[in-house]
């Protein structure tokens, strides 16, 4: 069976503030953005006012490829939220841009039993009001 999970309903959503707004609204133009240090080029996630690598405070959102691989995943079967259909796939996606730079996300349009660690994935967004949640799907072979 395939899970879609493109639905935007029934999701708990972040409280937008000046630190996280760029991230949660980035998908409006279909691009994923992460905060990056202008001094040492380190990606800082979750967003913070300082670079943990060099302590620079010169950081700005930068468009990233939206491509990565499955660092780990779990197929959730338990109805924590009765309004959400199970099973569904929660994944840790490690982005291509930097080692250990990850997003917790859902893998959509896939057969949960076929997902494997190391699978290539690419971002797609689901809109919830003014928030665009980055979800991922198995990438076409590239």
């Amino acid at each position, binding site marked *: 069976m395939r899970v879609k999970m493109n639905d935007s309903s029934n999701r708990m959503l972040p409280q937008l503030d000046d630190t996280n707004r760029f991230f949660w609204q980035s998908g409006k133009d279909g691009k994923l953005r992460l905060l990056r240090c202008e001094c040492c080029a380190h990606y800082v996630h979750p967003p913070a006012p300082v670079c943990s690598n060099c302590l620079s405070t010169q950081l700005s959102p930068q468009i990233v490829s939206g491509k990565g691989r499955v660092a780990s995943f*779990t197929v959730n079967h338990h109805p924590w939220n009765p309004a959400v259909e199970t099973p569904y796939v*929660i994944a840790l996606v490690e982005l291509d841009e930097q080692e250990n730079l990850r997003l917790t*996300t859902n893998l959509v349009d896939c057969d949960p039993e076929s997902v494997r660690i190391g699978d290539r994935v690419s971002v797609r967004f689901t809109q919830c009001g003014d928030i665009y949640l980055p979800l991922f799907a198995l990438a076409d072979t590239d």
Partner: protein
Amino acid sequence: MAASKPVISGIGQSAVGRRLGRSGLDLTVEAVKDALQHSGLSIKDIDGVACWPGRAAASPGFSPVSIPELHDAMGMDLNWYSGGGEGPGQLSSVINAAAAVTTGLADHVICFRTVTESSARTDLRSSGPLTDWMQWLLPFHAYSAANWTALYAQRYFHEFGATRESLGALAVHSRNNAALNPKAIYRDPLTLDDYLSSRMISSPLCLYDCDVPADGSTVVIVSRRECTSGLRREPIQIEATGCRLEKRHSWDQAPDLTTMSMSSAAKSMWSRTGLTPNDVDFAELYDGFSIITLFWLEAFGFCGRGEAADFVMDNSNIALNGKLPLNTHGGQLSAGRTHGLGFVHEACAQIWREAGRRQIQGPCNIAAVGVGGGTVAAAMILRGGNPIR
């Protein structure tokens, strides 16, 4: 001359069970009285109280009792108290108390952990927009620590070839020990087949990989050694603790998805004692989820990296009469989620040889206690008998 190491002079516990229908404060008072009786101390001797994480009003049942509330209820007179959530997990209270008695802030400190999670029910959807770290997990229907831990378990399986049978072996082992513990919540036999056929929660974790929510309160009294003469028992020395925070304090950004925070905690603990893993007689290792105990076994160095799955599948390692008796009361998997201090309570009961039918018959003087998982963890060695200062 250096100050003596801190000691544990008594332990106590309330009734532990499912939906007891009693308030958190009521259970806490029962546990405190039990510990006073156990140690020979009176309430007038208690001059400190510590708890983790402090009263958590937003999470019903998780931590329903505050220190001021307990203080007022029992008419205490305190020189020192400390409670709060920003520390290395459930052992924060014991570690803070150990520091307090060592620096002379208090002589006898009640450390308590009270839960009424079996009675309380939280409705996820009733909360408002997400802030802080939860905003990175919950929008993706990753509501539970079961989900976050499952991601680590899956990665561990992938890197080391571990299987569900190893987690099942631990679940069955814990149930066997719980059968000998009259206070354990689940005491009926569990087979590996039962385990393998139980419903999946969040793969690879099934129902029996998850601990059981409980109502109950556990108390440990941490004392200054010089104040313990004339008490009922030879005090148990807190030989060393460790609570190092070196990795990202994050479920999904931590560099290694197969170790969690306990590897740092155990490493710093070993740097503070002349003892080594070979000196440890038995271990009480947190099992909010079964995989966490495997991580603790490797963190303490009882087996090598990636070897914990094989270690727990060999019963001659972890049985009550094995090389390293493990979670002798049944752990939180079967005895109930007393949430951390239950492991300290059990370690002390074993060292004092008060564990009844589950008493370790071999040497049981030196215990490894590892509590926590995910982003918070603390490690401790307890030492009975006639320890060296």
